[in-house]
C-alpha cells in the first residue's frame, strides 16, 4: 500500500504519487538546481581568471552552447511555472482540490484558470524554449546598438 508523502525524505519523494502538478513541481526543482549549478560557479571563475573572456569563450564551444541552451530552457520553464505557483499562493488562481478516493494522492486544482495556466506553461515552454535554444546556439553574439 502506498504511504502518504513525508518531508525530510529527499528527492525520492518528488517522483512518488505523481499528478500533473507534482510533475511540474519536480521539474521546477530540477531546473532550479540546474540553474544554480550553471550560474553560481561563474562569478568565481571570473574572479579567479580576472576577466570574462575565458568563460565567454567556453560558452561559444558546442558543450558550452548546449549547457547554456539547457539553462535558457530551464529559466523559461522555471519562470513560467514560478508565476503559476505565485498566482496560486496569493489566491489569484483559486480552485477546489480533488483527492483520489482511495490512493493518498495530493490535491489537484481543477479550476478553469488553472487549466489555462497549465496549458500556457506547456505550450510556451515548448515553443519559446525551441526558439530560445535556437537563439542560444545560432543567435547573434554581438550587440547591435543604435547609439
Amino acid at each position: 500500500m502506498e504511504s502518504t508523502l513525508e518531508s525530510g525524505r529527499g528527492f525520492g519523494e518528488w517522483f512518488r504519487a505523481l499528478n500533473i502538478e507534482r510533475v511540474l513541481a519536480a521539474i521546477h526543482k530540477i531546473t532550479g538546481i540546474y540553474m544554480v549549478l550553471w550560474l553560481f560557479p561563474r562569478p568565481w571563475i571570473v574572479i579567479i581568471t580576472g576577466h570574462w573572456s575565458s568563460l565567454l569563450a567556453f560558452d561559444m564551444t558546442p558543450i558550452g552552447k548546449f549547457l547554456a541552451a539547457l539553462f535558457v530552457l530551464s529559466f523559461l520553464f522555471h519562470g513560467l511555472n514560478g508565476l503559476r505557483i505565485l498566482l496560486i499562493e496569493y489566491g489569484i488562481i483559486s480552485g477546489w482540490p480533488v483527492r483520489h478516493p482511495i490512493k493518498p494522492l495530493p490535491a489537484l486544482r481543477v479550476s478553469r484558470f488553472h487549466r489555462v495556466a497549465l496549458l500556457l506553461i506547456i505550450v510556451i515552454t515548448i515553443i519559446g524554449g525551441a526558439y530560445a535554444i535556437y537563439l542560444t546556439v545560432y543567435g547573434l553574439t554581438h550587440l547591435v546598438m543604435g547609439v
Partner: protein
Amino acid sequence: MRESTIRWLVHVGALIMTIGIPIAVAALAIVHRMPFMDLMRTNPLLIIPYAFVYVGWGAVWAVIAADWVWHGSLGIRRFVEEFVNDPKLRRIINILILIFIIVEGFVMVYSLVFVPA
C-alpha cells in the same frame, strides 16, 4: 526569520527576475535604439547580462545579480532541508545558507558590475 518572510523573499526574488528582466531588456532596446528584429535574433545570454554592463546600468544589474543569489540560495535551502528532519541541523543549514548568500552575493555583484565584460 519567520518562514513566511523567507517565502516572501523568494517570491520577490522571482518577480524581480520574471518581470524585471524583460522590462529592463525592453528599456535597453528603446533607450539605445536597438532594432526589434536584432533583439529577436540575439543570443539571450548575451542580451540579458552583458547589455546591462555595456550600457553601464551597474546598479540595476547589481540588484538582479543579488536577486539571483538570494532566490537561488533560498532554493538550495529548501532542497537541502528536504533531506533533513532534525530542527538543530536545519538551524545550522540556515546559518550556512546565510553565509553563502553574503559571500556568493558579493562575488556575483563584483564580477558582474566591476569586472570588465
